[in-house]
């Protein structure tokens, strides 16, 4: 059974020396990622973008672990054209907590953050236009949370807006 092994690189050493032990860097299946404490996220992302040339924010997404104390894991997939290197940055936040928006670093984060908000209800502080993107604006609930059933719908919205009893 494969297990994550520590990821050693000059980048990790540099970040650890300036930000201390709040960083855990691992490699799994040949892919590098680091778990960072929530409070350090804005700084780490800024360093990665401005100093380490991770100029392309590939994706921002989240995973819901309802049994954990800090329920949500937010994942940034980053890529550097100059280094031809890909990495992921992860952090854990509790339900109701927000996280700094990374639009100032990568304008492309706009829609990606809106989708995370839409699907998980995670707020990105400083986002200029944080509203639902795939679901209609008045919808209640965030479907990719684990406590949202696969057949569940916002029946009230369906009845008012579609004029039918149920969407099922």
């Amino acid at each position, binding site marked *: *059974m*494969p297990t*994550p092994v520590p990821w050693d690189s000059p980048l990790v050493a540099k970040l650890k020396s300036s930000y201390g032990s709040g960083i855990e860097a691992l490699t*799994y*299946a040949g*892919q590098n990622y680091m778990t960072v404490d929530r409070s350090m996220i*804005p700084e780490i992302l*800024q360093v990665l973008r*401005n100093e380490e*040339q991770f*100029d*392309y*924010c*590939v*994706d921002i*997404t989240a*995973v*819901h672990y309802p049994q954990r104390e800090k329920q949500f894991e937010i*994942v940034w*997939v980053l890529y550097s*054209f100059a280094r*031809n290197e*890909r990495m*992921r940055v992860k952090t854990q936040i509790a339900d109701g907590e927000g996280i700094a928006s990374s*639009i*100032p*670093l*990568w*304008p*492309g984060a*706009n*829609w*990606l953050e809106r*989708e995370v908000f839409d*699907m998980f209800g995670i707020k990105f502080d400083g986002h200029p236009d944080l509203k*639902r*993107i*795939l*679901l*209609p604006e008045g919808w209640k609930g965030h*479907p*990719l949370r684990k406590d*949202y059933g*696969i057949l569940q719908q916002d029946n009230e919205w369906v009845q008012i807006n579609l004029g039918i009893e149920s969407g099922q």
Partner: protein
Amino acid sequence: MTDRNSSLSPLDLETPEKPFLDANELVINMGPQHPATHGVLRVILRLDGEKVLGLECVIGYLHRGVEKIGEHRTYTMFNPYVDRMDYVAAVSNGLGYCETVEKLLNVEAPPRAQHVRVILTELNRIASHQLWLGTHALDIGAITPLFYTFRDREEILKIYEKYCGARLTTHAFRIGGLQYETYNGFEKEVKNFLDFFRPKIDEYEELLTTNRIWVERTKNIGVISGKDCIALGVTGPVLRASGVKWDLRRAQPYANYKDFDFDIPTGQNGDTYDRYLVRMAEMRQSVRIIQQAVDALPEGPIMAKVPKVMKPAAGEVYHSIEAPKGELGYFIVSDGSTQPYRVRVRPPSFVNLQALDVMCRGQLVADVIAVIGTLDIVLGEVDR
């Protein structure tokens, strides 16, 4: 927080604060039911006369909750669902998904399967570009290319149909390799197609490349710089047409693309015309790749050893491929059970569509149609 002096500094996407109802400003709604939006895309345009001041996309009309469905299906059962995202490039979607799960399972498809995968995926790139060319030209007012491209795309769909029984949502690949061995005469038919298709690209180009109307409608329209593309996460032919020579098949090779010789076509101006040229050149490169793959098609098994009931070890993997529209990524979290704990699809169309606002500002209303076409979006993938 931002470093404006750096060459990689983010875009300035803000517009000056203006009253919403300015007498000179007109807000009009385009779509969601509009033939030129290539599906159900709604665009709210803010106009000053014919000039576009800004726009906002409203999406989600085709949202089916693919990522949620993925959490409730086994790895094998979810495979056909991915075909329904970018339904004109279903084979590419399948390749990305199968390779990601293979990474989680730590298996690799055998060489013969890899070759067949490359052949079918590159055929799909051609088919996707053909569909783009036909509809894009139709939007701008050239009707003939649509008939030409659909006539020739049919030959590709015939190969698919013979191979796996389906034409559009093919479900051609399985996790670990291929379900079906190629049919008798597969190699010959693919080679025949290549011989048939080479002169057809010239035929398309004859219709458009030097056509005065086409050039006037596409040159200097929807210009986006390479720097802006990177800042917005735009990938695929749009990025390459802006002069960034980046293709995942080369940058981070997957399948067995490293065995094949091909060029990465790029443009310089980042306008609609360059994106047209890049996609035309990409079709020629795809022909080159398929020719090499089919000439060197090895014998051997088509399936790796994968368990009947797949239970990848707990862990997570992000893997992406160069789909016809750009970087198509899958982020799958496994908790060790038969179903993925989380499936995230990073669709190229969704991210690329974000650039529409930047590309359309200052252009005319009629050019919005051209720019939507040149972005080559598929709403099934945008909304998932």
